[in-house]
């Protein structure tokens, strides 16, 4: 997992609440066998509309999604996070995220930032008026900054540490490699093997 310290990028203001994971990535995309290539499925239904904000040329290359409240509800599919990341998003800002989606996002290194709805409104206004306006999401200072806006946010210490260090569950376990080696050294010889090591 890539470490996240601070990120600055242009934004996509998504003026919708209750965006569920089916809208983020529809079910028929779940048949894929990889973790990438989901970018075209992101918000698939809405993208048929050329006026949909993601389709506007001035939003190309944007990396911060500013969404309405209750983002990521519904099915637990991890694919929703992969789709956002595959598309190029590094951070999502919303007043409220669904629990499982939030857990999945932090596990995968997509920073989900909770800010009050007024601040979200302010960010919407700013980036709608000026599509080139940049937003900085600073995990070190736990702060979101944009022109005229400085907003602190909270994140639990363990999740923050893991993002800053770029540690996924596997990396954390691998830090105990010696302990695993030691356990393996004591495993009895009669334990089954599927093939020669």
């Amino acid at each position, binding site marked *: 997992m890539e470490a996240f310290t601070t990120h600055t990028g242009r934004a996509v203001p998504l003026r919708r609440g209750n965006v569920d994971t089916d809208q983020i990535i529809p079910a028929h995309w779940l048949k894929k066998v990889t973790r990438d290539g989901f970018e075209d499925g992101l918000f698939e239904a809405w993208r048929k509309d050329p006026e949909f904000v993601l389709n506007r040329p001035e939003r190309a290359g944007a990396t911060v999604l500013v969404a309405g409240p209750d983002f990521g509800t519904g099915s637990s599919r991890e694919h929703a996070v992969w789709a956002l990341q595959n598309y190029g998003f590094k951070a999502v800002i919303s007043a409220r995220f669904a629990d499982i989606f939030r857990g999945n996002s932090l596990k995968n290194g997509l920073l989900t930032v909770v800010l009050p709805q007024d601040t979200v409104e302010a960010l919407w206004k700013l980036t709608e008026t000026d599509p080139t306006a940049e937003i900085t999401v600073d995990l070190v200072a736990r702060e979101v900054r944009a022109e005229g806006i400085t907003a602190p946010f909270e994140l639990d210490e363990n999740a923050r540490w893991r993002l800053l260090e770029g540690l996924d569950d596997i990396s954390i376990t691998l830090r105990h490699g010696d302990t695993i080696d030691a356990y*393996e050294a004591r495993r*009895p010889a009669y334990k089954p093997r599927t093939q020669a090591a």
Partner: protein
Amino acid sequence: MGRTLAEKVWDDHVVRRAEGEPDLLYIDLHLLHEVTSPQAFDGLRKSGRRVRRTDLTIATEDHNTPTLDIDKPIADPVSRTQLETLRKNCAEFGVRLHSLGDSEQGVVHVVGPQLGLTQPGTTVVCGDSHTSTHGAFGALAFGIGTSQVEHVLATQTLPMAPFRTMAITVLGELPEGVTAKDLILAIIARIGTGGGQGYVIEYRGEAIEKLSMEARMTICNMSIEAGARAGMIAPDDTTFAYLRGRDHAPQGADWDEAAAYWRTLRTDDDAVFDHEVVIDAAELAPFVTWGTNPGQGAPLSQEVPDPASFADPNERLAAEKALEYMGLSAGQKLRDITVDTVFVGSCTNGRIEDLRSAAAVLEGRTIADGVRMLVVPGSVRVALQAVEEGLDKVFTAAGAEWRHAGCSMCLGMNPDQLSPGERCASTSNRNFEGRQGKGGRTHLVSPQVAAATALTGRLASPADLADVPTPVEV
């Protein structure tokens, strides 16, 4: 205080224990199949990781494999891609794979035990909920998600949240004509599909001790349908006899050492379970489901229940919905329900004893007009054994279709599916809406009941067959 079987196996696998963190458990055996592994391998590739212990990992193709024309290319592109991806991944990462056409291919939960890889006191995981099957050997066996699959591939360990323990004691002996499947269906009807939530269930008592290994697998397999984390049975002489001489069973001095350890794997007399259930085997009878979850079942001799008879409003609503989906009405005799299809197979009832018991009922008889019966062995080995015993001939002579090994109509990821409205007596484990095909209606049954049902065209047990004419011997 003494410990339960599950606690002993758990304790023996703790790699790391730290305050406020889940225990890190060592995994002895990791089983893979094509559906839940691709993103896990992809994750490894992305982070430049390898499979830590290819010698504790094995893969087989089962969910998507066709049961006819297995030498032809697979028509469905999604199924084909999943299988091809598994082949590519196993080759790249050095994982042993049994592909379609291989003599060891089959349903992952049939393959592990028959190779002797599933052993008492081991931890077994697979990206598949029916991994609970392996608990029949006194193994601690869990189904896991794709990110956990990746975690095990990379580290051979898993951080695991603690569980609670439940004992289900089955007193006495199963009456004649009552099988392990009837027992587990009755248990789930009794404790409910959520009754096992958070628990590892240990099945014990005289009736369990008398069961064969294969019957024990049927029981543990369906623990997950009661919501349990895992199901277990203490290893005993039946377990050891089943294992001895199998390809991957320990040999010589290793066997003696292993067996000495295995004999310690019993719940201590002074151990305390968090919850206990006692069942009297003598009260059991052939059991079938009438609804759309495995807990909605009743003895075959009864009627479809009236939803109004359920005190719990959620259960009442669930029963109403189930009857509507199943096209049944309250008070209808279960024995009057006619079926179009009979499926014998799956990791619940696709082993050789299951095929033998279905064949014994069919022998010398013909299935009812208009009934389609599919017999799908759980693995190629089971199929070869059945052919050696002439069971395939019994099935085809009765009018059933003898197919190639795989999951098949258990979940209909391959072409073996029910059409909308079709009704099936199935030896599998899930009667969820659409499980065997969109709009399909499933009644879970034992292999004997499946065979008797095929003969009469309506839900029946072998005891009902007296009036089905058997051909005169020539």
